[in-house]
């Protein structure tokens, strides 16, 4: 339930979320352009950072788990990410032979 928001007078959760998302963005930027790691490592790290940041938005800004449908909303998002991974990774894998 999001009812507890009534009692807060300062949007701590939002500010923390915003700062974290900025930090994650700049880490990704640094990793990609200045770290000098291998391409595989860079890709692995920046994709992980993106997933973390997406989760941040879902939980801290979008209140995904609140309301009596919180469970359905969460399952819905997890399932859609599952399909997204299948579509993206699957397409790349299947079409690899012409890439």
């Amino acid at each position, binding site marked *: 339930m*999001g009812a507890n928001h009534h009692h807060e007078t300062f949007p701590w959760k*939002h500010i923390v979320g915003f700062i974290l998302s*900025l930090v994650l*963005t700049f880490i990704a930027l640094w990793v990609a352009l200045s770290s000098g790691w291998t391409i595989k490592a*860079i890709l692995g790290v920046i994709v992980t*950072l993106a997933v973390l940041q997406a989760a941040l938005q879902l939980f801290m800004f979008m209140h995904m788990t609140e309301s009596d*449908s919180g469970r359905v909303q969460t399952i819905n998002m997890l399932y859609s990410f599952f399909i*997204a991974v299948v*579509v993206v990774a699957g*397409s790349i894998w299947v079409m690899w032979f012409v890439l």
Partner: protein
Amino acid sequence: MAEAAHQYDETMPLEYRTEESRLNILGFWIFLGAEVVLFATLFATYLVLFQRTGSGPTTSDLFEIKDVMIETLLLLTSSFTCGLAVFEMRRRRLSGLLTWLLVTLLLGAGFITFEIREFIHYVHEGATIQTSAFLSSFFVLVGTHGAHVSLGICWMILIIIQLLQRGFTPRTARKVFIVSLYWHFLDVVWIFIFTLVYLTGMVM
């Protein structure tokens, strides 16, 4: 619809008070699930095609980190201010809500302006949507996101008008909440565009 459509539950935030609102919010979440798959398909297309540049420019020829970072920061901040708008709504402060919505909208408009400038710049360099498979998929992926943001701006304007006309009602509160979901979601998509299109494009 059930009779419960007009029963109020005082313990909940305004946007959840009617049965109709709860159904609409859940429905919108599920729609966002469909949007995830829609963008996933565009990403899949882009990632399969982005190294197939034909005789046209490649990712590293085109992308410039400064423009991308400006767009990213504008949209990230707008997502934050949109969250503040909902926060103010839950404190029942109409002026705060309207202010933050307006700020969100302006940041969104700034994002769109920079994106359009970026696209025009590419076209001037001879990189159009018809040049290569890479550019077709780039423009359609990033453009679809941009079209979503533009639609979100129009939608927010409609809701601001309704808030000015009607103030807080379960209906207007629900609309604000739903448009905020949409807006945060567009930020989520942008995070992946930033990572998988721009950063990846500059690395590879």
